[in-house]
């Protein structure tokens, strides 16, 4: 089917900097925060925090999910090079299993912001839920990873950092293919789980894993 629309081709609009510039205009240091590993079955939860120079022109930054791996690594290096400040917050699997998902989510974001080295005057947070709850002034932006440049930048550095960690873990637990699936519930990961059961990197009481292993008993 011909993929045509009647509207004229417009300049790509996303991700933009409108919220960042808005808060920056009030004199605040603005940082974007996004976390990765939310839906994974194994491995840490990693959040990124990025402060950009509102004057600098930046190209090619977009949500980590829209970048192919080699491009993503390049963009991550670019963000590290060009950003005013970068912070990464990691919550490892033991903490995750002990404290639970909501805590881990909050903690990863806070650690990322703490790691910035500057106190942000305003946080732009991907999603609907403000887990900073008053510790920093914060605006949540639904689909912020697609629409705000600093959040997209945060998603990319967090993703690349987490993938790197998973590659290291893959050496200690070669049977799960962590280097490729980075802990997500892909077919090869599922096969390995059925065969070997979970390891110390897997989320305990995680519903999809429980369902998968249940399946093995009933089939």
């Amino acid at each position: 089917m011909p993929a045509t629309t009647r509207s004229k081709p417009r300049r790509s609009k996303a991700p933009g900097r409108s919220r960042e510039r808005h808060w920056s205009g009030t004199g605040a240091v603005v940082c974007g925060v996004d976390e990765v590993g939310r839906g994974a079955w194994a491995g840490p939860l990693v959040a990124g925090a990025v402060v950009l120079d509102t004057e600098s022109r930046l190209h090619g930054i977009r949500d980590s999910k829209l970048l192919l791996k080699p491009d993503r690594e390049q963009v991550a290096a670019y963000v590290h090079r060009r950003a005013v400040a970068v912070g990464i917050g990691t919550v490892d699997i033991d903490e995750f299993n002990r404290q639970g998902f909501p805590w881990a989510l909050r903690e990863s974001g806070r650690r990322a912001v703490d790691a910035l080295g500057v106190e942000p005057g305003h946080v732009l947070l991907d999603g609907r839920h403000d887990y900073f709850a008053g510790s920093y002034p914060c605006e949540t932006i639904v689909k912020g990873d697609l629409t705000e440049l600093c959040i997209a930048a945060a998603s990319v550095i967090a993703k690349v950092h987490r993938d790197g960690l998973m590659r290291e873990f893959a050496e200690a637990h070669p049977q799960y293919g962590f280097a490729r699936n980075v802990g997500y519930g892909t077919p090869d990961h599922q096969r390995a789980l059925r065969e070997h059961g979970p390891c110390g990197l897997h989320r305990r009481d995680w519903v999809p894993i429980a369902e998968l292993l249940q399946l093995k008993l009933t089939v």
Partner: protein
Amino acid sequence: MLSKRQYGIIGERRAKAYLIAKGYRFVASNYHTRYGEIDLVMRDRRELVFIEVKTRRDGLAGHPAESVTRTKLRNAVRAAVLFRREHDIRLPWRIDVIAITGKDIEHYRNVTN
């Protein structure tokens, strides 16, 4: 008894879980454009996939895939084109339909080509 809307939301979540289990990566859900909403955007290896999810509680009102009309598909294509342009994505793309009837789930790949 769940409302139609609730059934729809549960269907979309099941579709997402189903595709992740197949190795797809999640990009966005319920993405609004002026040509209507894209239920799910995911990535299947190098390809960007736009997914229309149709949920029916049972087969009594006909197969869910029947309600995906030509007009809806045309709007889905327009919405997909818009999404790619807005996010300046050059990956190849396609449109899939996921039809859920009660507990059954069916996946139709590349319905517009």
